[in-house]
């Protein structure tokens, strides 16, 4: 298809490169260097979408990231992405784009009926209309509204693209590579400081590419190219194009999104976008300014565009946005559209300037109307004519509007900075309270002529260099063509019957703003929320100031008195995928595996996540149909002969120093000072509030050397706590801590044959007979011919048991070797399920009992609170409530009917009482099927439990609708005397 609106020469497109693309059902051609918007306009496509609320026909309105209208769906299948701004989508061969928000066809949208209903769809319509009856909301109103609203459609499939993150550092971040940004970057770069220059466009230059103004006697775009080349050659400068700096965060940190492959036909297999966190010493915001519209009747038809965008399409993209263009302006820059277009042979129908001043130079043939106003437009799918206040009608197929320029102050507001109104340019400029290290230069701070922007960029860079104590480069000031920029504020044409749009993306009109004011929503923040002005994805970039001005007029206040809403990150939309980065699926969070993981995998283990760790929960054998079979077998085999369990995940902390014993003694509630070398002891650790924090076994390997174990879940919390005690509470103690969790692979060997099994691995001279190595002994030994190992005679299962630790490199081999040595005894590996069954059978507490709300007394461990010393948590553990004798106690529970299965989480209610909170006496913490007792058993807390053994109560579980009669019993279900573990 021909590009009928492509100008025959000029522009920054690569005419040698023809790119085919699709829009809706038709195929078109464009050139390299086009955006989707410029390519559509080159092909005369003016209707590109339907508006959000009224489904009005809309066309391309701008030439940049501020675009409110031309939102399209890109790509197909899982890669389909809605609401992409056509003005930001770089054209590539094969691009597949579709218009949005219509039913039927774009041209004949069935929902355009909303436009006829518009008298009923004013601000607050939903709030007022869908209130009654209440029950209709979920079933009727919401689904209907959702179906009709929402612009583009999601693919509803997982995003197949990859995203990445990264971290960058610089002395000066320059945001925007327009004239001020390039000028600042050249000065800073030549001085040798580290510069990052970021721009959302794929081409540096900003407005230099869109205007015909020259710099240093070169065409502006040529100068920008030369500047880019010079900067690119500097080691200390990094240029990031296609990169939007979207947020200014604390302490000079900026967020930026780089679109790395969005402009490529086929993703290259590389991440599509990279989210950069940029650490800066200083930042210069050179984000330029955004042109705004003027409100008048039917100012939203395709063909009505911003005047600066019309120039950009002509100058940069060599596209005529119409054959006959009219201009409606309140400032000098609108006139440049006339002269630039005319120079390219485009006919200028009229220039209507709201000011009563003498006209600027106008192209021949153009009607010039000073003090004029456009009161309406005509044309169903695109403007065909405009009407003036004088009643005159002017034929044109494009109306270029300039209501003035608003500096892009967004980043300056991200830390609650308030912009200030400047009357002479009729715009908000950055206030005084900028984020730390931020400066603003050029149009972003209201400096509007090219010459001044270039100078401002340079001077800002020079000031920063001087702050750094550096010499700025010798005078490198630039000269530029003069331009006129004077403005006289004009917001809204009162004449005309149609709707005058303010916010095109959210379909907010002048009438809505007035209505909001009438109904009492007078603060600008209320106005925003009631009308949704500025709340679309474009954050009202072309609309906000216009909306405020109209609110100010309605309330009879000045604009500064009316104030402005605040901007928050992100400056432009950022895909959630980019924020997630790589953290999805298997890469969602780190995985920790024990050294014996592979062995477990090879031996039928099913794994369970325990924090970041993967732990074997049971080992299936052929023929197992249910996990309980595996678990029961592991328990029974361990109690009958011997079982082996990987316990590497327990936290291990190496504690050394002259005061190590004193330190351990202070952090545990029970005594450790007198623990002999070669012994271990179970330790209970309290928080300072007197409740239990953690427990574990601590071994004394030497006079000044302890190894503490923690629960798997609390390893890092305990380490942090110990460092707090060491550094903040007792800085004078000579004690050192280091984690050795990763250094040692540790396995529990439990069961009557545990000793016989282990003896086979020990090197000669190690005697682990009960006399030489009794219960709670520990020692450093060697195994399998000199491999250093640590042996602890401790038991969680209640059996004769040891834990053996070897350097982690041998961990995988240790599991295999223990199993091999245990072959003659029928040794079984066991997982955390069997471990759990056995500890419940023995009444040992774990995380379900040490839940941060229970005291030592609750756990039946009151005797572990020493009365001979101070320790963390002692004072508050003596509080009345925690010290009371009739509090909760940890006891065991058995179902009266042994066929019943107990459930953890059930609450205890006395028999015959109602199931109410007042009658709640405690709760079940852990349950298991005991293959030894052939019944379900449980542990739980119940008031005065220790004196109620034998009583029956109800374990009420209203959530699962189940009540079970249970008998209170000792928590020691198996071997209550502890004979086995001493065997």
């Amino acid at each position, binding site marked *: 298809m021909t590009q009928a609106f492509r100008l025959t020469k000029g522009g920054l497109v690569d005419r040698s490169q023809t790119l085919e693309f699709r829009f809706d059902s038709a195929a078109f051609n464009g050139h390299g260097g086009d955006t989707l918007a410029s390519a559509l306009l080159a092909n005369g496509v003016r209707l590109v979408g339907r508006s959000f609320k009224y489904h009005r026909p809309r066309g391309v309105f701008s030439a940049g990231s501020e675009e409110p209208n031309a939102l399209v769906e890109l790509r197909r299948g899982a890669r389909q992405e809605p609401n992409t701004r056509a003005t930001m989508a770089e054209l590539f061969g094969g691009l597949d784009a579709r218009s949005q928000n219509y039913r039927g066809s774009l041209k004949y949208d069935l929902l355009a009926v909303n436009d006829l209903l518009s008298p009923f769809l004013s601000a607050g319509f939903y709030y007022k209309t869908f209130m009654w009856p209440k029950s209709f909301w979920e079933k009727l109103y919401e689904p209907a509204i959702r179906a009709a609203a929402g612009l583009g459609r999601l693919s509803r499939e997982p995003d197949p693209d990859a995203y990445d993150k990264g971290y960058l550092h610089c002395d000066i971040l320059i945001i925007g590579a327009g004239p001020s940004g390039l000028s600042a970057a050249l000065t800073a770069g030549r001085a040798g400081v580290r510069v990052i220059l970021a721009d959302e466009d794929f081409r540096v230059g900003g407005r230099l590419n869109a205007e015909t103004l020259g710099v240093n006697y070169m065409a502006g775009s040529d100068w920008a190219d030369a500047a880019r080349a010079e900067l690119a050659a500097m080691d200390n400068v990094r240029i990031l194009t296609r990169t939007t700096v979207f947020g200014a965060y*604390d*302490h*000079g*940190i900026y967020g930026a999104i780089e679109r790395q492959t969005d402009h490529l036909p086929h993703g290259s297999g590389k991440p599509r976008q990279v989210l950069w966190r940029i*650490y800066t010493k200083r930042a210069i915001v050179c984000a330029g300014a955004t042109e705004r519209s003027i409100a008048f009747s039917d100012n939203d038809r395709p063909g009505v565009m911003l005047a600066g965008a019309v120039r950009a399409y002509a100058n940069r993209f060599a596209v005529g946005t119409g054959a006959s263009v009219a201009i409606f302006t309140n400032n000098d820059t609108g006139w440049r559209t006339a002269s630039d277009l005319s120079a390219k042979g485009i006919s200028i129908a009229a220039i209507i300037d709201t000011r009563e001043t003498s006209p600027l130079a106008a192209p021949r043939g153009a009607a010039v109307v000073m003090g004029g106003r456009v009161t309406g437009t005509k044309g169903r799918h695109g403007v065909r004519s405009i009407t003036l206040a004088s009643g005159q009608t002017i034929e044109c197929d494009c109306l270029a509007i300039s209501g003035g320029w608003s500096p892009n102050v967004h980043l300056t507001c991200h*830390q609650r900075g308030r912009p200030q109104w400047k009357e002479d340019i009729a715009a908000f400029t950055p206030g005084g309270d900028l984020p*730390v290290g931020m400066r603003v230069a050029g149009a972003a701070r209201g400096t509007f002529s090219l010459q001044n922007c270039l100078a401002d960029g340079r001077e800002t860079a020079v000031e920063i260099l001087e702050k750094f104590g550096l010499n700025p480069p010798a005078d490198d000031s630039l000269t530029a063509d003069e331009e006129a920029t004077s403005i006289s504020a004009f917001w809204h044409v009162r004449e005309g019957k149609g709707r005058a749009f303010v916010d095109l993306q959210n379909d907010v009109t002048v009438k809505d703003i007035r209505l909001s004011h009438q109904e009492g929503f007078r603060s600008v923040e209320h106005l925003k929320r009631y009308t949704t002005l500025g709340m679309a994805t474009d954050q009202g970039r072309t609309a906000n100031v216009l909306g405020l001005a109209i609110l100010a007029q309605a309330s009879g206040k000045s604009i500064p008195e009316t104030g402005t809403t605040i901007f928050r990150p992100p400056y432009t939309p950022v895909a959630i995928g980019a924020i997630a980065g790589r953290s999805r699926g298997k890469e969602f969070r780190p995985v920790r595996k024990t050294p014996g993981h592979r062995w477990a995998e090879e031996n039928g283990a099913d794994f369970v996540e325990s924090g970041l760790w993967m732990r074997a929960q049971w080992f299936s054998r052929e023929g197992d149909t249910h996990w309980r079979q595996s678990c029961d077998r592991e328990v029974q085999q361990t109690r009958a002969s011997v079982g082996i369990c990987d316990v590497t995940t327990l936290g291990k902390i190496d504690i050394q120093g002259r*005061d190590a014993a004193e330190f351990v003694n202070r952090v545990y509630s029970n005594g450790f000072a007198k623990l002999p070398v070669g012994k271990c002891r179970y330790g209970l650790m309290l928080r*300072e*509030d007197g409740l239990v924090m953690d427990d574990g076994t601590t071994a004394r390997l030497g006079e000044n050397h302890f190894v503490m174990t923690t629960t798997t879940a609390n390893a*890092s919390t305990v380490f*942090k706590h110990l*460092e*707090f005690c060491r*550094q*903040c*509470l*007792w*800085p*004078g*103690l000579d004690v050192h801590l280091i984690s050795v969790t990763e250094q040692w692979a540790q396995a529990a060997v439990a069961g009557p044959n545990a000793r016989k099994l282990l003896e086979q691995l020990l090197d000669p001279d190690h005697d682990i007979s009960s006399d030489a190595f009794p219960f709670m002994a520990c020692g450093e030994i060697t195994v399998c011919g000199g491999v250093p190992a640590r042996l602890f005679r401790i038991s969680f299962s209640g059996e004769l048991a040891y834990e053996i630790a070897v350097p982690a490199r041998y961990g995988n081999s240790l599991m295999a070797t223990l199993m091999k040595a245990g072959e003659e005894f029928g040794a079984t590996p066991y997982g955390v399920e069997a471990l759990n069954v056995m500890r419940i059978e023995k009444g040992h507490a774990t995380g379900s009992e040490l839940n941060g709300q229970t005291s030592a007394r609750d756990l039946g461990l009151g005797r572990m609170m020493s009365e001979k010393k*101070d320790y963390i948590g*002692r*004072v*508050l553990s*003596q*509080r009345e409530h925690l010290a009371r004798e009739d509090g909760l106690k940890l006891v065991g529970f058995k179902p009266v009917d042994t066929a019943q299965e107990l459930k953890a989480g059930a609450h205890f209610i006395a028999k015959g009482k109602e199931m109410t909170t007042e009658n709640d006496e405690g709760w079940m913490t852990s349950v298991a099927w005991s293959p030894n007792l052939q019944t379900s058993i449980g542990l739980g807390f119940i008031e005065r439990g220790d004196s109620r053994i034998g009583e029956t109560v109800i374990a009420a579980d209203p959530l699962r609708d189940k009540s079970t009669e249970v008998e209170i019993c000792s928590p020691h279900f198996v071997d209550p005397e502890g004979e086995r573990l001493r065997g």
Partner: protein
Amino acid sequence: MIINHPLLGPRDASEFSYLGDASLIDRPDPQAQDAAEQFHDYVYLRDNPAGEHRELWFHEHGDRSWLVVTRNTLTHEITRVELAKDVAIARGRSR
């Protein structure tokens, strides 16, 4: 946020974990007559200033030092960073 570590220089806040008010350094004397009262206040009572706040941060993914960071809760401006150990010693804590 960036915390300017007194030994290591500026580091991203994500290397640190937060505990709370630096008054936690001042653990009361457990032998005091009113120890229960003092410990109650120590564990449960905190100022909640809108402005300058001295607080404890742990350089968990760094040198494992506890720091006392003086931060303005309104602006996040950090005006001072000290090693908590030095602060503790200066406040008379020892063994």
